């Protein structure tokens, strides 16, 4: 029983990391990133390929974060020149291109066959039986680290500039600060978090393929932060929890609601995600936990 709960906790913690990254980007700078799953994908494939070649996590994780951040760089440069909704569309295209590359470059990614047999994360460090708990502990530590880092950023001069950019970009420019560089850094930071999440994911599921990195994942994370409340770390946490409860909980739904055929469950899940996004956007844009941003 505990092992099952730990499994759910691990997936949840991975999603929290994704939500924290997205929340950093949107909450602090207002960047609408519809391509978050692209960074997730880069991190996952990097960790998978490197660890299968024998590199230890101490190397693969930072490289995964680095490559995800680097992938964000050209996207970031583009974002500076574009209106928010245009950027949103471009970022969606970006994540699809990442998926196409993963599909097409067979020599690198094994294409649609995917990469299987990714080694477990803590295998060499702890006994087999304790491995999941160790992974969960590490994940929680990383999440905590991300949260602390975000708190420090928010309270630092850098963070104050970010908030000022969000509130009034022209004023910031007139003060001689360069909002572009800051926005870029935030985008890359959020991407790095997604890359680390991807690395954890690859090790945990042990099999990755391009079809696991589709835009729907991005929109599920969006649903999480909208419901939880943007701009607040607690919002990302609460929102992700609700998301996971929904995704895993719907597994048990057919016991409670027997007259819905199981086959339709996937459509119902999709519909509920859509409805949640619409309702929260309409009636509670600040989410459950409240909103720091003025949007």
């Amino acid at each position, binding site marked *: 029983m505990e092992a099952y709960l730990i499994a759910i906790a691990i997936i949840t913690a991975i999603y929290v990391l994704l939500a924290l990254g997205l929340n950093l980007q949107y909450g602090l700078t207002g960047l609408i990133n519809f391509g978050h799953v692209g960074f997730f994908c880069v991190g996952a494939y990097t960790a998978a390929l490197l660890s299968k070649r024998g590199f230890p996590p101490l190397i693969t994780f930072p490289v995964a974060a680095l490559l995800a951040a680097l992938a964000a760089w050209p996207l970031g440069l583009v974002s500076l020149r574009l209106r928010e909704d245009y950027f949103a569309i471009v970022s969606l*295209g970006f994540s699809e291109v990442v998926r196409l590359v993963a599909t097409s470059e067979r020599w690198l990614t094994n294409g649609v066959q995917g990469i299987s047999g990714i080694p477990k994360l803590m295998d060499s460090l702890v006994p087999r039986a304790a491995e999941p708990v160790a992974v969960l502990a590490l994940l929680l530590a990383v999440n905590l680290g991300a949260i602390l880092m975000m708190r420090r950023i928010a309270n630092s001069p850098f963070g104050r500039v970010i908030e000022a950019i969000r509130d009034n970009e022209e004023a910031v420019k007139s003060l001689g600060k360069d909002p572009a560089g800051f926005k870029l850094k935030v985008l890359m930071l959020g991407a790095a978090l997604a890359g680390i999440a991807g690395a954890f994911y690859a090790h945990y599921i042990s099999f990755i393929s391009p079809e696991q990195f589709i835009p729907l994942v991005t929109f599920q994370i969006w649903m999480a932060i909208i419901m939880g409340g943007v701009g607040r770390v607690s919002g990302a946490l609460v929102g992700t929890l609700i998301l996971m409860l929904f995704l895993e909980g719907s597994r048990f739904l057919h016991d409670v609601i027997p007259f819905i055929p199981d086959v*339709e469950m996937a459509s*119902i899940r999709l519909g509920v995600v859509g409805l949640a996004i619409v309702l929260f956007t309409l009636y509670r844009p600040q989410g459950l936990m409240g909103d720091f941003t003025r*949007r």
Partner: protein
Amino acid sequence: MTGFLELLVAGLNSGLVVGLAALAVTLVFGVARFANAATGDAMSLGAYVAFAGANVTGSLIAGSAIGVAAGALVGATSYLLVFRKLVGRSSVTALLASIGIGLLIRAAIALAFGHQQRTFQLPLVRPWRIFDIRIHPNDLNLAVVAVLALAVTFFVLHGTPVGRRMRAVADDLSLARVSGIAPARVMIALWLLAGAVTSVAGIMLGIKAVITPEMGWEMLLPAFAAAILGGIGHPVGAVVAGILLGTVQEMSTPFVGFTYKIAISFLVLLLVLLLRPQGLFGRVEGAR
């Protein structure tokens, strides 16, 4: 050489469907000023309703009429229920809400019709050969429909009072208000028109390909790209851009292969936004 010409024809053909979808996108983008991500799924809905209608009435034309009416209705309803309440908020909010609406529509379609493919029952015919290039009568029909849709849109926008008001609202909302134009009625008319065009695009796509719950969503990125390429708010631009994109995409296949050709719309979109944000026909409004 024939090979290239055939690719050109293939591109023109797929570009027309993209162009129709882009027409729907650009109408909403131009007047309501946000990117409606539910366009794709609304296309699917139009196709499904037309399919059901054709089955019930036994006629494709009648079914399509029902599909177009349904599309118009869905457009107006989503405005009344959702988008009207989001006026004044950032355009991103509306974009987000439209994503949610799109997912809802897709779920509803899948629940109502199931996931297996449907097809419009149309007779298959052998093509005509002109200068050793194959031209299919169906393609010509598609072109005719696209031109008709454009013509109707043009007529509404330029030849009717409500269309003039739409263009006024598109140009400058506050000025339009000050001139006494009641935005609500204009918007309803706009969404009826956009919804109808969306359905037409969906039905044409369904006739060309197969009808599945995901069919419209796949068209979304190319439609956005074409709308932006053509210049937001320019109906002719959207259709021309759609054709251009489709053609470039197909003709690029000998160079980039069949997987990456899909990325071409994205690349074009990016280049346009960076180099000439107003698109081919638009005014300099700025993408920033």
